[in-house]
């Protein structure tokens, strides 16, 4: 079954229907190597949504999966802020445009949405591999001009209204909005063992983290990557925020 046929029931958005594009294979160079010596993480080819999931798509999901309505979901799976910007549990209203990225969603809800589509969340490695691409290069992660452009987004004041998806130019892989729109959930967001308080000494880290313990940062010039590490490590799975959305991925073998 092609990915597109799985997507059609969810293509109720007024904007362009969601598509998945192949990304990779490639190598991710994390600023915090997940283990000592693993400074290059190979990432196999996979399929990634070309743009974030929208409010309209999430609404279609909630209507067919009412256990994910904000008035029915367990608070173990979504906090009090879950979908509070919608006018009703099953209607968007003026504060949630159909083509804006779906926000105020917990990790559990994002996962359930992707699973219902026969897909999944991307891993951190997959997301970062896709995000390393500029418009022209698959890996612009060490390009100072690319880094500066991405960091400029963080320097801008938050706009009053979140932009619709797909406004910016797609990157080398055909993926849009990995930068400049919302943070995005990943499947293994809780896989980075960085303490919220890095003033602790190495010994204290061993009491908190079995195994590799404190991780040394590589490549200290990639500030945007630091921001993403900070954001992921501050999350809990039931959290929802107005600046955090998601997109789905699928395993993608050979074409």
């Amino acid at each position, binding site marked *: 079954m092609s990915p597109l046929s799985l997507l059609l029931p969810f293509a109720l958005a007024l904007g362009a229907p969601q598509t998945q594009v192949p990304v990779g294979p490639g190598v991710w160079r994390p600023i915090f190597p997940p283990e000592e010596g693993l400074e290059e993480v190979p990432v196999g080819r996979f399929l990634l949504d070309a743009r974030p999931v929208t409010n309209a798509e999430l609404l279609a999901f909630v209507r067919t999966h009412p256990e994910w309505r904000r008035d029915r979901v367990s608070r173990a799976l979504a906090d009090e802020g879950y979908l509070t910007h919608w006018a009703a549990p099953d209607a968007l209203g003026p504060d949630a445009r159909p083509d804006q990225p779906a926000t105020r969603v917990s990790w559990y809800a994002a996962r359930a949405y992707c699973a219902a589509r026969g897909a999944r969340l991307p891993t951190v490695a997959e997301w970062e591999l896709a995000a390393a691409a500029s418009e022209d290069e698959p890996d612009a992660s060490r390009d100072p001009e690319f880094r500066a452009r991405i960091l400029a987004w963080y320097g801008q004041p938050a706009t009053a209204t979140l932009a619709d998806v797909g406004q910016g130019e797609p990157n080398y892989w055909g993926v849009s909005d990995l930068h400049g729109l919302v943070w995005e959930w990943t499947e293994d967001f809780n896989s980075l063992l960085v303490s919220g308080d890095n003033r602790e000494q190495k010994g204290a880290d061993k009491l908190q983290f079995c*195994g590799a313990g404190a991780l040394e940062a590589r490549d200290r010039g990639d500030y945007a990557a630091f921001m993403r590490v900070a954001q992921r490590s*501050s999350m809990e799975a*039931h959290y929802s925020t107005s600046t955090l959305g998601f997109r789905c991925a699928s395993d993608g073998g050979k074409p």
Partner: protein
Amino acid sequence: MRNLLAALLLAACERETPTPAAPPPAEVPTAALAPSTNAPTMPDAPLYDVAMTLEDQGGAKVGLDTFRGHPAVLSMFYASCKAACPMLISKIQGIEARLSPEARAELRVLLVSFDPERDTPEVLQRLALEQHLDLNRWKLARPAPQDVRLLSALLGVKWNRLSNGEFNHSSVLVLLDRDGEPVSRLGTLADDPTSFLQTVEAMASTAPVSAVAP
């Protein structure tokens, strides 16, 4: 650079992650940093709302809510872990030793493995015997492989699998009330368990409202 990262991480700990107004400063004096605000909030709803089947050290299929009706400590570990996991078990046993006999009798402990492929019931049973665990009140269990990440998310445990098959993971103890709602949490092995102990004592002295589970 460590101070820079600390500043970034603390800034990102606020729930509504604001877009920073300016690129981060090069150095922030340690004294200027607030105490860590990275204390995660656990959901105020029963974790037992999530159905999950586990297999315990006796090979029995049990639910995540196997200890419903009792105050219960939940955590994650793996059997071949050499350092933090024995310390985790010791920490729990240390907490138990400081409880009143009545509270200790009420408390249950469920440790779930990161490594269901290798931590079979036989391996778990052997570990339980080696560690002299009271299997009237403790269970070691393995989840389905696809549920390891889900459980870690529920408990607020950070982890990843290393290329040598070991695991890098945090040592979190979550205390659930009789209905499965998280009421206390120890984030590290070094955390002071006083409040944890007091909460167990308080729960143990309160008669369960619902039917008592075995």
